[in-house]
């Protein structure tokens, strides 16, 4: 009765093999590598770069273990750090001819040392969390209110253009929060405007009401449109962050949405928060406005007069004050790209902007009307605006390709382009949580977590083997199998291992032994009750199962609650905790039974089992069973 059919053993062997294969990559550690990623948002890295990197290495006489393309970067792995440095030099020489205008970022970092056949099986090591690896973590809140205000502002502009195009005269357009109010002199114009706007701008919900002698048409942003604005704002910010983080050359950056309006950024290997924040925390938005060039404005600029109505005073990068009109012509949303370059005729450094279709149209109209005037590109960081550049419009610019030139060095052009690119954040973001962990602390945490698991496991194993003898050995093997499966599943899922995660592994092992204690106690009880060894084993496993299920369900309830409501470190704990409960069910019941069956199952006339002393209440019947 205690014999498994062959297929059950086959399942166990397969589980063991799969467990071993997927756990294996975690033991190889990391080797030095060189990572090549794109320095420009417009430059996409593809598999063709692998060939160029290989050529560069061959030309430099450096031998790499392999060069491979992984999603958005190319990595070459080297045997030691000396070759790594030589490799980096060779790659830089071939791919980055001009250090001032690099197309590629070449950075030193680490790659898994596990052999290629494992990688080919998608057996990859677990990601180490920042608390084990060192690095920076930011949680950023996207300012949705400002995204909505910006949308309303843009819609107000659209309304103005639409009404002018159709020759519908209004008595003023005002924006109040996210609502837009338009005043009309007569009812007929209002009706015509309402039809037009309802047709052209479906994002707004219109209602009209008389307002004194005028007629007022009010537009409210529809909830679904507002939601769409928020979703795109977060997505656009994530994309922008990806581009910026590329510039840091980090090996495995994590940029993810969390909740409705938050973004998590994790940069392993970066300890310099100031620099990281400089790049990712540049919570900037971009606006294009016209410079007010009246006499009053000139007076206000030098501080000898009040700022004229409808204008604001800003400071240009470099210090000179400028008076700008309040009306926003374009925002960062209309800007697709900004790159530094050179003028084909004068060979001066330039900044080249690319606008989207709507932006191009507006820009053409504005430049046609304002040749010879100055426009200003403003960068807003945390509510404060700064004029990045205020060029003079020389001619009408169509087609959405704008070139800004004059009095710039190459470095300045690069800076301006970078600043303008960062302006394409759809909404400002604020850091609401920040964590840095030094690399030594990370290494210590790994050692501490590892030691906790090892010593705890050893203590349990010793106790089980001493108390339950051979059954204790089976239980210990089942526990080891549980650990193997848990690590394999975590590696397969490519989960991020953190210190709380290691604690959860330890706790899962400590709790998993419960199932084996239940089984062993039950077998002893059956033996005490006078059952034959084979019957006792059978009944022990069968009857203990319901209890094991029960106890795991209650533990799982708590685990799932943690998973549902936890965030950050708690999630890591909860995931491992839940998975640990599931793997322990399998290993404690099925695997340990398999071992027992293999050992005892064949013996038809089994006289005794090695499960420690079974004490019987009758003094004369006490005997080793």
């Amino acid at each position, binding site marked *: 009765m205690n014999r498994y059919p062959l297929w059950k053993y086959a399942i166990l062997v397969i589980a063991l093999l799969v467990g071993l294969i997927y756990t294996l990559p975690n033991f190889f550690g*990391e080797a030095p590598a060189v990572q090549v990623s794109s320095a420009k948002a417009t430059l996409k890295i593809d598999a063709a770069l692998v060939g160029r990197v290989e050529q560069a290495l061959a030309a430099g006489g450096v031998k790499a273990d392999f060069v491979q393309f992984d999603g958005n970067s190319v990595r070459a792995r080297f045997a*030691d*750090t000396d070759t790594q440095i030589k490799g980096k030099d060779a790659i830089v020489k071939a791919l980055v001819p001009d250090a001032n205008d690099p197309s590629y970022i070449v*950075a*030193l*970092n680490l790659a898994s040392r596990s052999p290629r056949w494992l990688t080919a099986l998608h057996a990859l090591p677990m990601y180490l969390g920042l*608390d084990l690896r060192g690095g920076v973590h930011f949680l950023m*809140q996207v300012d949705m209110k400002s995204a909505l205000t910006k949308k309303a502002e843009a819609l107000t502009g659209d309304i103005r253009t639409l009404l002018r195009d159709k020759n519908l005269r209004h008595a003023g357009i005002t924006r109040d929060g996210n609502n837009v109010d338009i005043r009309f002199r007569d009812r007929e114009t209002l009706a015509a405007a309402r039809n037009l706007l309802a047709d052209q701008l479906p994002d707004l919900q219109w209602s009209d009401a008389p307002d004194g002698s005028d007629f007022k048409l009010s537009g409210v942003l529809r909830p679904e449109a507002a939601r769409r604005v928020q979703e795109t704002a977060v997505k656009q910010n994530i994309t922008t962050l990806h581009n910026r983080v590329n510039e840091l050359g980090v090996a495995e950056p994590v940029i993810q949405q969390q909740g409705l309006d938050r973004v998590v950024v994790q940069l392993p*290997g970066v*300890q*310099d*928060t*100031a620099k990281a924040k400089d790049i990712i925390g540049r919570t900037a938005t971009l606006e294009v406005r016209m410079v007010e060039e009246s006499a009053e404005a000139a007076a206000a600029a030098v501080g000898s007069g009040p700022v004229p109505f409808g204008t604001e005073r800003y400071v240009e990068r470099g210090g000179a004050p400028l008076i700008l009109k309040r009306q926003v012509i374009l925002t960062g949303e209309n800007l697709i790209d900004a790159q530094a370059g050179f003028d084909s005729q004068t060979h001066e450094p330039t900044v080249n902007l690319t606008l989207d279709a709507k932006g191009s149209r507006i820009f053409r109209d504005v430049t046609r009307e304002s040749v010879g005037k100055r426009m200003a590109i403003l960068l807003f960081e945390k509510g404060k605006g700064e004029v990045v550049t205020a060029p003079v419009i020389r001619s009408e610019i169509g087609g959405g390709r704008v070139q800004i030139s004059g009095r710039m060095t190459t470095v300045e052009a690069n800076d301006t382009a970078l600043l303008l690119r960062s302006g394409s954040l759809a909404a400002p973001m604020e*850091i609401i*949580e*920040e*964590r840095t962990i*030094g690399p030594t602390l990370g290494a210590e*945490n790994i050692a*501490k*977590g590892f*030691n*906790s698991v090892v*010593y*705890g*496991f050893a203590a*349990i194993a010793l*106790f089980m083997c001493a*108390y339950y003898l051979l059954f204790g050995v089976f239980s210990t093997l089942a526990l080891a199998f549980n650990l193997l499966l848990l690590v394999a599943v975590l590696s397969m899922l490519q989960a991020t291992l953190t210190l*709380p995660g290691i*604690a959860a592994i330890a706790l899962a092992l*400590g*709790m998993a*032994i*419960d199932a084996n*204690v*239940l089984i062993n*106690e039950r077998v002893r009880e059956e033996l005490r009750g006078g059952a034959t060894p084979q019957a006792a084993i059978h009944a022990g496993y*069968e*009857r*203990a*199962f*319901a*209890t*094991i*299920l*029960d106890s*795991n369900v209650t*533990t799982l*309830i*708590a685990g*799932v*609650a943690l998973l549902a*409501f*936890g*965030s950050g*470190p708690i999630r890591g*704990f909860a995931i491992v905790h839940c998975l640990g409960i599931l793997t322990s069910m399998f290993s404690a019941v099925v695997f340990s039974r398999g071992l027992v069956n293999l050992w005892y199952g064949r013996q038809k006339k089994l006289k005794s089992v090695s499960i*420690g*002393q079974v004490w019987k209440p009758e003094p004369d019947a006490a005997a080793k069973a």
Partner: protein
Amino acid sequence: MEFFRIRRDIPFMRHALVLNAISAVTFLAAVFFIATRGLHLSIEFTGGTVIEVAYPQAAALEKVRASVEALKFGEVQVQNFGTSRDVLIRLPIRGDVKQAEVVGRVFDALCKAEGASTSSQQITTEKGESVSRVVCGELGKEPVHLQRSEFVGPSVGSELARDGVYALLATVAGIMLYLAFRFEWKFSVAGIVANLHDVVIIVGFFAFFQWEFSLAVLAAVLAVLGYSVNESVVIFDRVREAFRKFRKMNSREVIDHAITSTISRTIITHGSTLMMVVSMYLFGGATLHYFALALMIGILFGIYSSVFVAAAIAMWLGVKREDLVRQGPKETDPDDPNAGAVV
């Protein structure tokens, strides 16, 4: 080896009143300390900044405190963390201070106090990874080293606290439903009261000693809740079985029998789990210290409460044979694997 050689049922329930009185006193003491002393919540809940720095020699706490206080960031807490060389600095949230700059400015001040200045450097580690880091003074001979920093904004903190409460409520509701479905409402109430009493006592310990109550501790508390409820489940299973088997026993005898026959398993499993947790406490370092401590207290009180408190409450609630043994013939079949757990 056999630790438990019990000849006849131990009359646990004869002492139920005394045991429950002990529980009630501990519980009330815990509530009292939580109410009067409050919890020393970590910055994850309150918001604020934590900075851990390491010195090559034992740190002069007063000097550290003085240099940080000079920055006027509000009330500063400075203490050793793990060893005498490591220092933990806690700063509250202040509306008028740019939070994102606090860490950098504090480290600058500490570095200046050591007569050096900070600089951002690109370093290649021994393993061959290029890392940018803020270095105080000369690399390799740094008088002070930034180990770790953490800043949590006020909104995040209150959300975490709220989510923590939700997680607790969801766990309690889930477990009660499960017990009510698996057994009967009296057991459900008894089980959850007994185990919530553990939770309150763990939290009471944290309030009394003013240990830091962090997210990890909250996770430990919830894990313990799920873990020790299964203890009650095992005993309730036995109670049900005994009601069926021994028709002449009264409720009190049945409960005594159930506890006696599961006590060896209870102590061995909890002992094993405890070994693992003690190992975490000893080797896990400062980060896992309070996490392991919460688990230790929880497991120890878990044995006590699920054995003595849960069963006693079920008894006071007047659990009877008729409550459990009336589900029809199929349920009473002892060979039915779904009939309930037995140990």
